[in-house]
């Protein structure tokens, strides 16, 4: 288990003739515009089912390239207090799987490919093939599965092939090269690189482990690599855009909705954050292209904002 795997020559993305999925196209479009893609997360049903739909559409209209709709679950093992609170509220409000699918449908209709982020048990209980079928019917792009390792994912790999859905698995700073190879081999759409060891929640600085992880992942796949966990604003998005293809932001969006004195103000704050992230993702990426050797572009607003590099957790 400790033997490092030989870095492969970068794998051919997917099967040779496979058409690009909507998520892959979104990353490609962002790359062609010299910017990192912005991936935004919100749990369905928070602050209400319709409130979450409004917020998701607002994100789509304000610069988010790919949406992740969280399926609220009773035991969110790797979520911090902010997302726990939102998910708890969503469940208390009586959010059901059908509401999640309806949210996916509405978000997709707003023109942004939409994945479902979910712990495994609700999918397992629904029936993997049935969920894949219903998600595809709702226009969903695929699943992000933080507690499903590839070894246990056989039925999901089969179902996602059958219904043409993306499957996003996570790699972490602790992943060995061998693991990175195993995980990236089954990913489709993009690879989710967890920037730090810890649960969801914003951090004061971008983890110094993230860039190294992304570069390791690139030894094994040509899929886009997006970095999540901890990112809170445009300045940090710019930093991440310096080395990754996408920036994933969840808690910061949820926090905007939690803090808002009124639903309208919540939506306005979500729009402002999406625009800030999109601007950061563009600036950081362009600065990196201008000086490809510089790991942390001086032009990025982040460099001034947070010089300390240590990961807070």
């Amino acid at each position: 288990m400790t033997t490092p795997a030989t870095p492969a020559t970068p794998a051919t993305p997917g099967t040779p003739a496979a058409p690009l999925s909507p998520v892959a196209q979104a990353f490609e479009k962002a790359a062609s515009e010299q910017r990192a893609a912005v991936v935004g997360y919100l749990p369905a049903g928070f602050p209400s089912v319709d409130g979450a739909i409004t917020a998701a559409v607002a994100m789509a209209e304000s610069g988010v390239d790919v949406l992740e709709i969280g399926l609220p679950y009773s035991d969110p093992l790797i979520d911090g207090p902010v997302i726990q609170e939102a998910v708890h509220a969503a469940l208390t409000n009586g959010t059901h799987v059908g509401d999640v699918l309806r949210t996916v449908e509405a978000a997709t209709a707003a023109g942004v490919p939409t994945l479902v982020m979910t712990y495994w048990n609700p999918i397992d209980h629904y029936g993997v093939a049935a969920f894949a079928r219903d998600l595809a019917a709702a226009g969903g792009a695929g699943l992000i599965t933080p507690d499903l390792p590839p070894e246990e994912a056989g039925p999901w790999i089969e179902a996602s092939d059958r219904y043409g859905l993306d499957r996003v698995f996570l790699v972490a700073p602790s992943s060995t090269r061998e693991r990175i190879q195993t995980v990236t081999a089954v990913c489709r759409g993009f690879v989710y690189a967890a920037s730090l060891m810890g649960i969801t929640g914003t951090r004061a600085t971008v983890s110094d482990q993230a860039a190294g992880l992304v570069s390791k992942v690139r030894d094994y796949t040509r899929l886009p690599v997006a970095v999540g966990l901890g990112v809170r604003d445009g300045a940090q998005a710019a930093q991440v855009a310096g080395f990754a293809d996408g920036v994933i932001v969840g808690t910061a969006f949820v926090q905007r909705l939690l803090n808002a004195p009124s639903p309208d103000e919540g939506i306005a704050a979500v729009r402002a954050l999406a625009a800030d992230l999109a601007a950061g993702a563009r600036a950081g990426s362009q600065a990196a292209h201008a000086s490809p050797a510089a790991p942390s572009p001086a032009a990025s607003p982040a460099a001034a904002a947070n010089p300390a590099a240590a990961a807070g957790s």
Partner: protein
Amino acid sequence: MTTTGHPGHQTQTGNQSVPDATGHFGIYGGSFAPEALTAALDELTEQYLAAQADPEFQAELARLLRDYAGRPTLITEVPRFAAEAGGGRVFLKREDLAHTGSHKINNVLGQALLTRRMGKTRVIAETGAGQHGVATATACALFGLDCVVYMGEEDTRRQALNVSRMRMLGAEVVPVRSGSQTLKDAMNEAFRDWVASVDNTHYCIGSVGGPHPFPMMVRDFQRIIGVEAREQLLAQVGRLPDAVVACVGGGSNAIGIFHAFVPDTGVQLIGCEAGGEGPEPGRNAATLSSGSAGVLHGMRTFLLQDDEGQTLPTHSISAGLDYPGVGPEHVWLRETGRASYRAITDAQALDGFSVLCRTEGIIPALESSHALAGALQLGRELGPDGLLLVNLSGRGDKDVATVSERLGLL
């Protein structure tokens, strides 16, 4: 041994042995952990298997179990209790007499030695009744390790004695306010800690649940209960029991006493789950009796869940059984027909508690009282020729307040 070649103590029924190399008991078990933990779980598996094969590790564990934990624990024949239980013979395996007052110490000493072997300096644990937390705090004091114990806030109230014991032993006790504020939520919080601290921290899971290798490893550390009891009973009575009875929360004391008897197909293995206030959803913690297959806390197992896979609230008078899942090996033992499980209500458990106190002068834990209530039923089913072995998994000091209130003793 058909599948793996690893030196753990496999369970065999027929020609199947479990778990396989990736921790599966039939279709149950496995590892559904976040990727961040995969490297640590792989390392733990590797180190555990190496330790199993290392005579020095085994000798040190044996020494600690003997000189520190007080093993072997006794078996005690309880004739006045047996008279209430069909008139046969009943023996208790006295895990209540192990240091710290329950079987939990067996597992914790093993995991503490492993923690040291891995060079980690901090241990975290979840606890329900507080017995696993006390055992962990104890081992950490003994080994000079930092210790943080997560405990549902409701449990910190109903098991307040054990909160004080943990703090005296130098552990930090963190009350968990999320969800149902019981064992499941304490386990969620411990996992959240571990994802961020895994470099220097070992998560000492207290039962036969969680991702591989925990169900196998904790079983192996607990199987000494049945190994001893089987020998002791053969020496004292000259025959194997008709049935072995144990309470089942996560299932560690039950697996511990069952395991050595698994090949003895004439011996019934009976697990007693928390039937709470009855079979209505949310009013019990009888996972095998009322649950269905699913994934929680890193394992595929049986769960109490609603029709969308959300974990149901649970209830039991006993904090240590108040958990919506169960160790995967129990599901497998039931599906292969080797063990059976029954639900014991709060009222029946209180009855088992009182009968043992008054007939034998032993105050049992409320968890163990579920096994005693099961023994009262089973003894009556077996009649006067019956020979029962019951795991008395812990002592009842921690439950004095709860029982006093319920029975109006104050």
